């Protein structure tokens, strides 16, 4: 615990701010039902009520409490983006490491497949596939995870390529260790820092991507509270100069900036660079 605190003390103010904000988001997401004054889908007032004692941030287009939906949105939007990123990393990371370790035609086949998938703009590809399979949370997570795993594949393969040629990997191969052992105990520990940093950046990207899809009405479907769709549902208010619809978008922006701050610091720390 003291080690964690010391590390926190060493971090620059931007990284500290980032860590505090991310912790806050996680706490809100985990304890959403305890923190929210009303239910996620409960209609508790008239449409578009202004900010008041009973409804701190007013109500939305169907008369649901805005603050409660924002709090539940943390759980849904961040949760789904996180699950998608984890899946993309398991898929892309595993394929990249295997391709780099095995080389030969496995590497060729996987790399050419990834080249083709990356040649199509991601948003367009996602829209095409979502038209075909329909929009549900499961298909959303799967489609974006597969599309994003191509980017993870590129990075993990490139990183692993530099490690595979090292002598200690050669020694392990000569000892007769299997593929899994070499990847797990020789390559992965050495490839960790860039992959962790990439995880942060990928999360931001996936998070913005899912929010954009939800905003277009093609991502997380109502009545689930989600920050992207909340902006769209209440966008009418903006033309009256009301900033309430921008709050969910601000929640998205603050989290991405916080993650970026932490990743910046992490990269600087692991690469041994100083200001």
């Amino acid at each position, binding site marked *: 615990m003291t080690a964690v605190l010391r590390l926190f003390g060493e971090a620059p103010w931007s990284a500290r701010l980032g860590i505090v904000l991310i912790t806050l988001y996680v706490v809100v997401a985990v304890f959403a039902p305890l923190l929210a004054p009303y239910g996620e889908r409960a209609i508790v007032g008239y449409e578009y009520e202004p900010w008041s004692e009973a409804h701190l941030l007013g109500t939305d287009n169907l008369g649901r409490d805005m603050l409660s939906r924002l709090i539940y949105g943390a759980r849904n939007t961040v949760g789904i983006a996180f699950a998608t990123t984890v899946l993309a990393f398991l898929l892309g990371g595993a394929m990249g490491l295997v391709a780099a370790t095995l080389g030969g035609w496995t590497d060729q086949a996987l790399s050419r497949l990834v*080249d*083709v998938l990356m*040649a*199509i*703009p991601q*948003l*367009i*590809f996602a*829209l*095409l*596939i*979502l*038209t*075909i399979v329909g929009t549900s949370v499961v298909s959303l997570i799967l489609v974006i995870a597969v599309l994003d795993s191509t980017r993870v594949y590129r990075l993990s393969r490139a990183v692993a390529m530099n490690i595979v040629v090292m002598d200690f990997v050669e020694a392990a191969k000569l000892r007769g260790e299997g593929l899994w052992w070499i990847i797990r105990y020789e390559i992965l520990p050495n490839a960790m820092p860039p992959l962790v940093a990439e995880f942060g950046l990928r999360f*931001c990207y996936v998070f*913005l991507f899912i*929010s*954009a899809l939800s*905003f*277009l*009405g*093609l991502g997380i479907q109502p009545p689930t509270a989600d920050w*992207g769709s909340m*902006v*769209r549902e209440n*966008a009418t208010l*903006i*033309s*009256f*100069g009301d*900033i309430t*619809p*921008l709050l969910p*978008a*601000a929640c*998205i*922006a603050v989290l*991405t*900036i916080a993650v*970026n701050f932490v990743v910046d610091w992490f990269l600087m720390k692991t690469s041994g660079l100083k200001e």
Partner: protein
Amino acid sequence: MHPLLRMIGERLGLGLLTLFVVSLIIFLGVELLPSDIAQEILGQAATPETVAALRTRLGLDEPPHVRYLDWLLGMAQGDFGRSLASGREISELIGTRLYNTLFLAGLAAVISVPLALGLGILAALWRNSLFDRGVNTAALAAVSLPEFFIAYILILWLAVTAGVFPSISNINPDTAFWDRVYRTMLPALTLTLVVVAHMMRMTRAAILNLMASPYIEMARLKGIKNSRIVTRHALPNALSPIITVVVLNLAFLIVGVVVVEVVFVYPGLGQLLVDSVAKRDLPVVQACSLIFATTYILLNLLADVLATSSNPRLRHPR
């Protein structure tokens, strides 16, 4: 043969191959659809006879490879088929919208490219100054914001509060040029904010990268002014990465219009794509995806060719 020409030829061949595979993916993706398209159009209540009749009319009875070739040849000749939802010719739907989208992306490019290059050069010139740090922080923030957030903030600020620009881009083919520019300004500004950060940071990095080279040192020792060193000595050698990032961002602009068009109800291709996805109008989605993908691949190809050909060693082989 000139090595540069050969390189361009190779890249073009590779690009065509990619396009072919992409068109195959777009076509086969729809083939994998669990339900029948004819059934989908007519709904559950349709009798088997009407479904069969529609299948024949749409040419669904043909084997897949024949239909793929038909579809591809049709696309190449500008015949995209008919929309399932409205029954109209897709080429009719797409025509003006494609022009509108290109107009929006073009306007955004005209604003953002000079702005990004200027800011990047100034940031490199006044490195570590207050200006440099300010621009860098602003760039980092702009990258982290969702596009629709930037769009609505601009609406709130420039359309609702200040009333300078209209919040909805209501344009039609008869709109005069300058009026069109005026009505397209807010979406173009949004796109500008989205892409400027990346281009500016790359420009700054590419120039700073060169500032440690011996010939810059030499120029310094000769007593040349800093601004002249940056613009005359460093910039020409930094052009290759800068051109690449500019063209890649243009590719991004064309695709990035989708969200922005929806916010501003701009009658472009992106809006059509999103509407068609919601209606599951597959032929329109296929046509739009193919157009977007083609533009994206071609611009990527262009970036590749320009970056390599700005290398003097390749341009003047011994």
